[in-house]
């Protein structure tokens, strides 16, 4: 349980942190993290809105010049310094750098408590699909009968239909976290990721045989080359790649710290990044085939049914399920896939927090899982299983993604490159065991190109939220919950980084091993 660190080789004490027993399990867990709700309900619409088939070009450019290089940076930090985000940054650059790690941890904590709620909804909808509980008006059913949405506020009017499945989700998550890195996270990914691929493939095949499916695919893939001259389209591509890959906020650092020292991290990173995009493409085909059917069945154009996010999953898809032959099958496959994709991502997000608390206080796996899991579950239930949960969730999600994840990613990249000047060293580390050699081009991409692209995206987002209140929500909600949560995690990070580590934890960087 305790970390018996040695001054010469601090990583020796890391056995007890947990390990993935093989490269395959690590890759599956990393894919499980990257493939989430956004792959299914965000990518198809972003591609459709931003040039259709022509979007492939900015998308691939963003993947190659920003997504994969950034993913490898995260892998490099976690694999080299062998710790949670705060411990890795502490070993990389000292006490100030540790703040970056805690900032990422705080963001993950906020995300975990609302992300679980959407999984709980998807669990309910998997069962609703069987008898099409939403009847003829899925939107009224969602916001009225099911969520019982009240005016924006903070109250304690619990919605039983959300509370109980949410409690169940958290119990499952805590059980997985207690089981550990290999027996919990790794085992779950090893079963669920192949299952997800099979279920989604079945969904895609079913959708492709619906009348109107090809019209949907035509809408998705017909190229609008003019879009390529629009800077907003390029920003959308970089944003999609960035949010989709789970990079920049501690997840990949944490997972990489559980991988054997001789593992080929660059080769693994290519597989994870391309697997994520492969699933996105599959989701695009499945979603637009279904939307094509919906448009034809309702006698309207695709642009009238095309949507994303909650509206796609919980309003458009129920309508499709009601219309389609064997709709219940489509429903169970679609919502079941959302549950599985969401769960493997949620687990990676909460692991960032557990791993950090565990490292700092040198706790056992079980204690750390409970110390993090129980308060997170309580906050999740109190804030989001209520009639006032939806606007809170929507606001927290919008702001923490942009002014949490995106901001911390840019700041940490710039700090690692220009303040701590560790990029050369990380490149050498990755090249020691990597099958894809990283040259100076990687330094340029990670140190200059990617941060520049992400800063542009960030400024665009900032302009958007300053131009008009997000979703027309009241100022107290936007300032208190939106900006408030983004600011709170930063303040907490500064405080937590100043707290002392247990003396048993070695804060010096592990010595490099000669490999191959």
């Amino acid at each position, binding site marked *: *349980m305790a970390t018996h660190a040695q001054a010469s080789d601090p990583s020796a004490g890391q*056995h*007890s942190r*947990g*390990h*993935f*027993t*093989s*490269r395959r399990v690590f890759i599956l867990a990393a894919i499980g993290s990257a493939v989430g709700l956004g792959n299914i309900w965000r990518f198809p619409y972003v591609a459709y809105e931003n040039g*259709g*088939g*022509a979007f*492939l070009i900015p998308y*691939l450019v963003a993947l190659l010049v920003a997504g994969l290089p950034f993913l490898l940076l995260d892998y490099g930090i976690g694999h080299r310094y062998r710790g949670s985000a705060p411990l890795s940054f502490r070993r990389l650059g000292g006490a100030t750098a540790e703040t970056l790690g805690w900032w990422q941890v705080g963001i993950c904590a906020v995300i975990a408590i609302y992300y679980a709620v959407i999984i709980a909804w998807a669990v309910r909808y998997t069962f609703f699909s069987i008898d099409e509980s939403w009847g003829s008006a899925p939107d009224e059913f969602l916001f009225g009968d099911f969520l019982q949405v009240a005016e924006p506020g903070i109250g304690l009017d619990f919605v039983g239909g959300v509370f109980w499945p949410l409690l169940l989700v958290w119990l499952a998550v805590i059980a997985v976290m207690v089981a*550990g*890195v*290999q*027996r919990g996270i790794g085992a779950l990914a090893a079963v669920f990721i192949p299952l997800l691929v099979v279920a989604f493939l079945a969904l895609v095949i079913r959708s492709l045989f619906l009348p109107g499916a*090809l*019209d949907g*695919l*035509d809408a*998705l*893939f*017909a*190229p609008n080359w003019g879009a390529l001259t629009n800077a907003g389209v390029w920003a959308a591509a970089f944003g999609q790649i960035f949010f989709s890959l789970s990079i920049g906020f501690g997840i990949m650092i944490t997972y990489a710290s559980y*991988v*054997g*020292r*001789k*593992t*080929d991290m660059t*080769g*693994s990173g*290519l*597989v994870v990044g*391309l*697997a994520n*995009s*492969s699933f996105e*493409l599959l989701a695009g*085909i499945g979603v637009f085939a279904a939307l094509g059917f919906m448009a034809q069945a309702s006698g309207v154009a695709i642009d009238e049914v095309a949507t994303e996010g909650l509206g796609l999953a919980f309003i458009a898809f129920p309508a499709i399920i009601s219309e389609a032959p064997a709709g219940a099958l489509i429903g169970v496959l679609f919502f079941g896939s959302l549950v599985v994709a969401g769960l493997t991502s949620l687990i990676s997000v909460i692991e960032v927090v557990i791993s950090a608390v565990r490292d700092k206080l040198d706790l*056992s*796996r079980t204690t750390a899982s409970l110390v993090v899991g129980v308060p997170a579950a309580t906050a999740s239930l109190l804030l989001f299983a209520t009639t006032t949960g939806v606007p809170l969730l929507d606001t927290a999600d919008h702001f923490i993604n942009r002014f949490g994840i995106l901001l911390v990613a840019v700041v940490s990249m710039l700090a690692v490159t220009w303040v701590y000047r560790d990029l050369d060293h990380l490149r050498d580390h990755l090249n020691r*065991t990597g*099958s*894809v050699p990283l040259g100076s081009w990687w330094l340029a991409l990670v140190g200059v190109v990617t941060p520049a692209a992400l800063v542009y995206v960030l400024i665009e987002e900032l302009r958007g939220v300053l131009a008009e209140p997000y979703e027309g929500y009241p100022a107290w909600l936007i300032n208190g919950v939106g900006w408030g949560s983004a600011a709170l995690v930063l303040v907490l990070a500064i405080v937590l980084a100043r707290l002392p580590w247990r003396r048993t934890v070695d804060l010096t960087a592990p010595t490099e091993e000669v*490999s*191959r």
Partner: protein
Amino acid sequence: MTTSAVVMMIVAMLVVWGGLALAIRNLTRTTREEPDEVHRDL
């Protein structure tokens, strides 16, 4: 589907799925190194 949409769909599949297949091939061809420590997961 229009011809240009079919072409873009095929190009997307070839590049993304083909890229994944190549990446997996590259990974499995290189030396299979697994962690050699004892795995205690407490």
